[in-house]
């Protein structure tokens, strides 16, 4: 079949002919277009052959076929949705093995002896429907039980709201915030993937900033009025300490100790610099050379003193070079 040489991606309705090659470009534009369309017709026919032979189901609008998955991989538009982390309650329920079960929407209300909604307006056990709360021995005198009930309810609602927020924060950290929820404290991130909950300034940071602000006057905040309960700003650096001027028994020797310490430190640091062996050796060599030169000159003028020198030298070399007593200094 001719279709064999085309690459067909039925999911994208695409056909590609990798074998075609223009030996030489056609001269005119029309010629080029005509050739391309000819080729295109072949390709589209190949796709159509595959497409129209797919099993189709009839519809009033026309035959409908199910396309296979595209084989050409193209990138996604947005990242994959991340799974929502379980809420605190869900974690707890899983740990305890608690399962959801459906509850009736309508419940029999014994207060009014009617059927009422479980939640919402005109619900069962509504506070409004309680005309009398029986006094208990544990009740404190002077406390309104109705107001107490109301306050408790309010607290429960607040607590639930707090929990909800916490769960949303967790979801946000996992990057799985529901699309309709935005946490207003964060700037709108340009991407859906990177979201960070802004950190609260902690106590230390706040103190630092407050201290800085307090010390921002010419006097360093010395003459500013303090607020009630305000502590003086913390001094950031070290204080200088001075040693006593007069020497005493205990503290007085501190100055000596200090100077000793510094001196020792300096000495120990430069101890390896005190004797440079190489330098010393070269210095010694140079000196010796000079001396020799000097003596050589003298020896040329008066041979008397020349006799003394070799003798001195022979002190070392006498064992090896006894025969060349006179010639040795000349060679050197």
């Amino acid at each position: 079949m001719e279709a064999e040489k085309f690459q067909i991606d039925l999911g994208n309705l695409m056909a590609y002919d990798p074998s075609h090659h223009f030996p030489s470009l056609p001269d005119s534009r029309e010629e080029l277009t005509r050739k391309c369309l000819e080729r295109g017709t072949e390709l589209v026919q190949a796709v159509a052959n595959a497409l129209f032979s797919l099993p189709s189901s009839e519809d009033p609008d026309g035959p409908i076929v199910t396309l296979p998955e595209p084989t050409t991989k193209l990138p996604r538009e947005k990242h994959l949705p991340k799974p929502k982390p379980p809420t605190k309650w869900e974690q707890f329920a899983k740990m305890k093995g608690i399962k959801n079960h459906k509850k009736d929407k309508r419940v029999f209300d014994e207060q009014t002896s009617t059927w009422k909604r479980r939640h919402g307006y005109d619900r069962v056990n509504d506070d409004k429907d309680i005309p009398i709360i029986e006094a208990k021995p544990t009740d404190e005198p002077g406390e309104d039980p109705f107001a107490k009930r109301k306050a408790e309810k309010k607290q429960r609602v607040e607590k639930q709201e707090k929990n909800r927020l916490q769960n949303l924060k967790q979801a946000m950290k996992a990057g799985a915030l529901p699309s309709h929820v935005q946490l207003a404290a964060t700037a709108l991130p340009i991407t859906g993937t990177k979201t960070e909950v802004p950190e609260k300034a902690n106590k230390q940071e706040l103190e630092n900033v407050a201290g800085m602000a307090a010390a921002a006057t010419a006097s360093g905040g010395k003459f500013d009025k303090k607020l009630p309960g305000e502590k003086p700003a913390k001094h950031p650096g070290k204080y200088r300490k001075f040693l006593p001027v007069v020497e005493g028994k205990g503290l007085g020797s501190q100055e000596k100790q200090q100077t000793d310490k510094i001196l020792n430190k300096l000495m120990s640091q430069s101890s390896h610099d005190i004797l440079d062996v190489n330098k010393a050796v070269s210095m010694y060599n140079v000196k010796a050379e000079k001396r020799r030169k000097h003596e050589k000159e003298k020896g040329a003028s008066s041979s008397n003193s020349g006799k003394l020198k070799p003798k001195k030298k022979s002190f070392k070399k006498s064992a090896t070079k006894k025969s060349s007593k006179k010639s040795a200094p000349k060679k050197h």
Partner: protein
Amino acid sequence: MLKIKTPKTQRAARALEKRAPKLVENGKKTLILHGTKTSGVLNDVLTQIYHLKRGNAVKYTKKNKEIRPFESGGETSLEFYSLKSDCSLFVFGSHSKKRPNNLVLGRLYDHHVYDLVEVGVENLKPMESFMYDKKLAPKIGSKPFFAFIGEGFESVEELKHLKEVLLDLFRGEVVENLNLAGVDRLYVCTAISQTTVFFTHCALRLKRSGTTIPRMELVEIGPSMDFVVRRHRLPNDSLKKEAMKTASQQSKKQVKNVSRDVVQGKIGKIYMPDQQVGGMALSNDIKGLKRQRREAKMKNSAKEDQAKKRKTDS
């Protein structure tokens, strides 16, 4: 404490839902915009691409000074526009002495630039210059065919890239079901040299061939132009890896109690539990139970009747 912002209206909620990342995505939208200067040719090209993509494209008409997709820092406002208009493909036109009739085709992933191809436009033949039977004109948003011709698309790196971008740009939504009566357009892309691609848009005419497979006939309806590839930038590997992720193919949830029949079509079985009338919770706001008005009416009519009778009696 953080404040939660939720949409105030259901409509806004739906709009946000549409933009959220999904497991199976909807078609990519295209943003069409231009730089500080455009030529007449480029204006034409941008409008025509907008027409081809109609329904799935957003066209900006103002000049954009700060967009330079290939330069670092030049993509920030582009990314912002993409976020704003929820587009993940863009076509950016610019015209300069160095790069006349310049068209940058690019893709975005998560509203960040993914890859870019820069092409120069030559030999533009706009839609208006083609004469054809208007009955053949393709419908807006119909699924197009593609024909890529030439070995260049495989051997040359730039063209290979361009092929992928063109396919992504024009293919529209990935569909599962396709109506065979609705296939009516084809894009032909031919690599005529190492750098040049001849691009044209055709209508399809399905002719009878005697078999179930119709004979395809092409009618060129334009626009047609040459793309000369200039610069291009491939996605970096880590980004590519992330963008290519697909949802693991879950087996579809088995539909219970529904079967299909050739004659009867879709058949569903319904199991009804015993209706225990005695134990049923009835509320007072069930409409059927509102007898009062009806009863009152009957009572009234009975009284009137009696009154009438009395009248006649007397």
